[in-house]
């Protein structure tokens, strides 16, 4: 019995040391890994703002509510005024999920939008990118501008839901944050 106890103790001590060490290394590497990930995401946002890495200070806010996954807040370099915000948003369309990026200017109009994917069905995201939903430059919550008949009727419901979710968020919380 005593033997088993010492053996258990040896393993426990070793486990604690290992856990502690890993925690320390993680504390060092985690911010760098997060930075790498942010840089990768910024590359995706270059569609809307080609000079995003140099001309803006970008912070990412993770939300995870009402389909809004995260918000990238763009401030002009060195200032505190919000120039625009890019919303990463996903909504259920017909059968599958539509996930997209919507860039909104400070005055609430749409700078642009891009589709990241449609749940599982590879290639459909690319099809969506070819369709003009008529939302560019329109106020983000303006359903009358939304051109739902443009071909992909099966998924346009999901796309509209994405815009509505972003509009609701801005109405409730303001741009960014």
């Amino acid at each position, binding site marked *: 019995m005593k033997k088993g106890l010492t053996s258990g103790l040896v393993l426990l001590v070793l486990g604690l040391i*290992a*856990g502690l060490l*890993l925690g320390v290394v*993680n504390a060092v590497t985690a911010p760098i890994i997060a930075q790498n990930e942010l840089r990768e995401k910024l590359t995706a946002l270059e569609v809307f703002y080609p000079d995003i890495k140099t001309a803006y200070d970008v912070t990412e806010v993770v939300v995870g509510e009402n389909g809004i996954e995260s918000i990238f807040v763009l401030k002009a370099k060195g200032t505190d005024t919000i120039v625009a915000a890019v919303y990463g948003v996903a909504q259920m369309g017909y059968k599958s999920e539509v996930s997209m990026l919507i860039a909104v200017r400070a005055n609430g109009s749409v700078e642009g939008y891009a589709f990241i994917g449609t749940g599982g069905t590879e290639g459909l995201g690319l099809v969506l990118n070819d369709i003009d939903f008529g939302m560019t430059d329109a106020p983000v919550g303006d359903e009358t501008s939304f051109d739902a008949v443009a071909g992909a009727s099966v998924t346009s419901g999901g796309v509209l839901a994405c815009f509505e979710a972003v509009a609701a968020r801005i109405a409730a919380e303001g741009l960014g944050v």
Partner: protein
Amino acid sequence: MTNLLTIAFTAFFIENVLLYQFLGICSFIGVGKKRSSSLGMGLAVVVTIILAGMATWAIYRYVMEPLEIGYMKTIVFILVIAALVQMMETIIKKFSPALYKALGIYLPLITTNCAVLGVAITNITRDYSFAEMLVYSAAIPLGYLFVMYIYAIIREKLELNPVPKAFRGVPIAMILAALLAIIFSRFGGLI
């Protein structure tokens, strides 16, 4: 449903654990010499991967993710697998000596079989749901068993043939695996 079928077919044929992902090659070379031993090892791997897949998935989802220690998954998973294999060995030994005789000798080898840890980690990196995880964790080892058994049949026949001296043993086994890999790579055209 089609999603699950796709996962199962892909895991079994196209991304076959031995011929495409190259996991568990050590056991493939060693145990794949005889039909009986390939069957025993294959079945032991099937049971272990399904159990380990469920255990590691649950631990990651309900313990590690809430605690935000996902980065420790490698170390936690290997310990879980080692403990699981040990437990299986004890239980089988106690309740079914016949089964222990058939599978027992392969059990200690399974902890270091990369397929087990590989599947556990892939379940997490691919962000599988419970059903998807279960299908994947079953299809992968079944594909392992299938390929290993075919391989063993061919290698048993090969024993009776005059192989050039330099190719005897592992080299010819590798060439044989290459031929099987060509066949299996063609399944990709079906999806």
